[in-house]
């Protein structure tokens, strides 16, 4: 049998990691992206490599996934991370009362956590609210979303994967009741063509619903937006989280010379354009000011909104929806040769790729194990030298 050809739709973190996983297993891979790399949700994530601390009390399954992947990412792309850890900071008596549950949650999920003397935390973070009551250190880190994807893709290219940017899937092709390829339009040339495949993976993030709809299938993913406010100055060395259950504006992620305050949560119909609502921006600044009183002194550099691809089942509110991920084999919907991977966090992109690639290999009868846990990625700069403009 010839080597199977897989089409992956979407060059965000999930699609990029999936292209790498499958290429490393020796499969032929074509990644198709209607815009540029990470031009959707991935580009506009909070740049946070989660320790899992945020979820350890309310969503332990997602928290456990985060810390496992956090360790792996540190090993495979150490050059693409700001490694300064994170602090969960108590500002009120209610926050302080949450501390024991937080420490227990970290222990249950195997997240290294230790309380710092508050004087010490205030020394490390000179802009932190001087009234802070407690601080717990966890292994949060900061990444760069675009370069994260480029590193996966540059490595995938070295293993033969083809990346088609600015190329939009406009329809599916079928043969004998089975999806057999896609019709695409290359927006750089205006030309359309058909590309055949043995199997198609839908990794379009909050757009998985509209991609699946082209095949007449629905997936339980609700695009749920969040706002981030980037300040024109860096006020923290470490990631600063509010020591409390997840809520709006509970985190300030530093990156380069900026601090990024996030985030909120509301459902959106169309993830293509999401203006950042002024009241959400004001709320972020007010919440950020509680952790870092100097926030009000710094000009705002950017206001950003993007949609998370949350898997929502039943009547759960989006904030309560698990941040874990799920793979859907559309054989169960009567369409063979088509699977969707959705949900998750950028931190867990590699694990999502492993899950969907395992399913794909099983379906195609390919007995090759996943190797992405241990293979370091090549320099992201090689992506642009890999013929991506050809």
């Amino acid at each position, binding site marked *: 049998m010839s080597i199977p050809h897989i089409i992956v739709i979407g060059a965000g973190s999930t699609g990029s990691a999936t292209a790498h996983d499958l290429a490393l297993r020796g499969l032929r891979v074509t990644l198709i992206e209607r*815009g*540029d*790399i*990470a031009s959707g949700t*991935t*580009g*506009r994530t909070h*740049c946070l490599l989660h320790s899992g601390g945020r979820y350890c009390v309310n969503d332990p399954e997602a928290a456990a996934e985060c810390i496992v992947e956090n360790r792996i990412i540190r090993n495979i792309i150490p*050059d*693409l*991370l*700001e*490694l*300064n*850890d994170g602090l969960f900071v108590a500002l009120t008596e209610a926050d302080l009362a949450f501390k024991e549950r937080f420490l227990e949650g970290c222990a249950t999920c195997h997240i290294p956590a230790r309380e*710092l003397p508050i004087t*010490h935390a205030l*020394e*490390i973070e*000179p*802009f932190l609210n*001087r009234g802070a009551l407690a601080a717990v*250190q966890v292994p949060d880190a900061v990444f*760069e*979303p*675009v370069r994260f994807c480029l590193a996966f893709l540059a490595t995938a290219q070295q293993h033969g994967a083809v990346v088609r940017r*600015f190329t939009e899937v406009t329809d599916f092709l079928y043969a004998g009741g089975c999806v057999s390829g896609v019709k695409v339009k290359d*927006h*750089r*040339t*205006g030309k359309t063509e058909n590309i055949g495949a043995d199997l198609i993976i839908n990794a379009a993030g909050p757009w998985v619903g509209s991609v699946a709809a082209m095949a007449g299938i629905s997936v339980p993913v609700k695009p749920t937006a969040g706002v981030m406010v*980037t300040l024109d*100055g*860096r*006020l*923290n*060395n470490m990631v600063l989280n509010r020591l409390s259950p997840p809520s709006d504006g509970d985190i300030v992620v530093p990156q*380069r*010379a*900026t601090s*990024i305050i996030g985030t909120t949560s509301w459902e959106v119909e169309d993830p*293509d*354009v999401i*203006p*950042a609502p*002024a009241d959400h921006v004001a709320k972020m600044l007010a919440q950020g000011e509680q952790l870092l*009183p*100097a926030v009000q*002194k*710094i000009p705002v*550099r*950017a*206001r950003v909104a993007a949609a998370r691809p949350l898997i929502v089942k039943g009547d759960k509110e989006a904030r309560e929806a698990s941040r874990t991920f799920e793979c859907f084999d559309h054989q169960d919907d009567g369409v063979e040769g088509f699977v969707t991977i959705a949900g998750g966090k950028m931190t867990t992109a590699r694990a999502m790729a492993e899950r969907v690639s395992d399913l794909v290999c099983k379906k195609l009868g390919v007995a090759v194990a996943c190797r992405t846990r241990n293979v370091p990625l090549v*320099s992201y*700069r*090689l*992506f*642009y*030298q890999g013929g991506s*403009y050809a």
Partner: protein
Amino acid sequence: MLEITLQIFRYKTGESPHYDTFTVQVAESASVLDALDVVWAKHDHSLTYRRACHHSACGVCALRINGLEKLPCVTPVSSVWDGHTPLRLNPLRNFPVVSDLIVDVTGLFQRLSASDLEITRDAEPTLPLSVDNLADLGTRMEPEPVEPPENLTRFNRFESCIECGICMSACPTVAADDKFLGPAGLAAIYDERHKTGDPREVAHLLALADGEHGVWRCHSAYECTEACPQAVDPAGKIMALRRELIANRLKKGRRK
């Protein structure tokens, strides 16, 4: 809301280049990239432009706004639009145009690979405090270097350069010498040279800077430093490399 008119450079393989004009509504606080996103989403899905982070971390959206190189993601519409003259958007100069506002940035990344600069650096003692008037908030203006706890012996940072290509587009020498290492490439050599103490690496980096397409080709126009959205100051770094090269030559001369 603001109603803004954009005049956008269009080009597809095999067709003649032209401008298309779009009028869109955006929030008062919107960036030029927000306006482009609306053009793409509501008016013309065939428009190709680059975007990702929307907050000046990734560098991919760089283009020219009314002729000047900018990151549209952090350029408020209100800062560049006079209220009636259409805002003209063009791709960067000195790179091959692929389609519409997209250019082929391979040359930039080849130049950056020459010095192999890592994008993170270590051993930052504390925050780069550039913020005025913080004293009244009870925060210290210039905190003394702190003794971080056990495993936090140093803070680590991404380099300031976001590899956007703006300096290459603004540079008059790049336009004249397509092998010139360019502002970003030479600034990367400078940064890498100051990260290493290994004499062989230093010699290698200085030889790169001293080469036919190195620091001596620069016309000292300082357009790169003027246009850089990240205050990398490539021209200043090029001058510093020249000073080091000259000093080394003088030292060699004295030893003879």
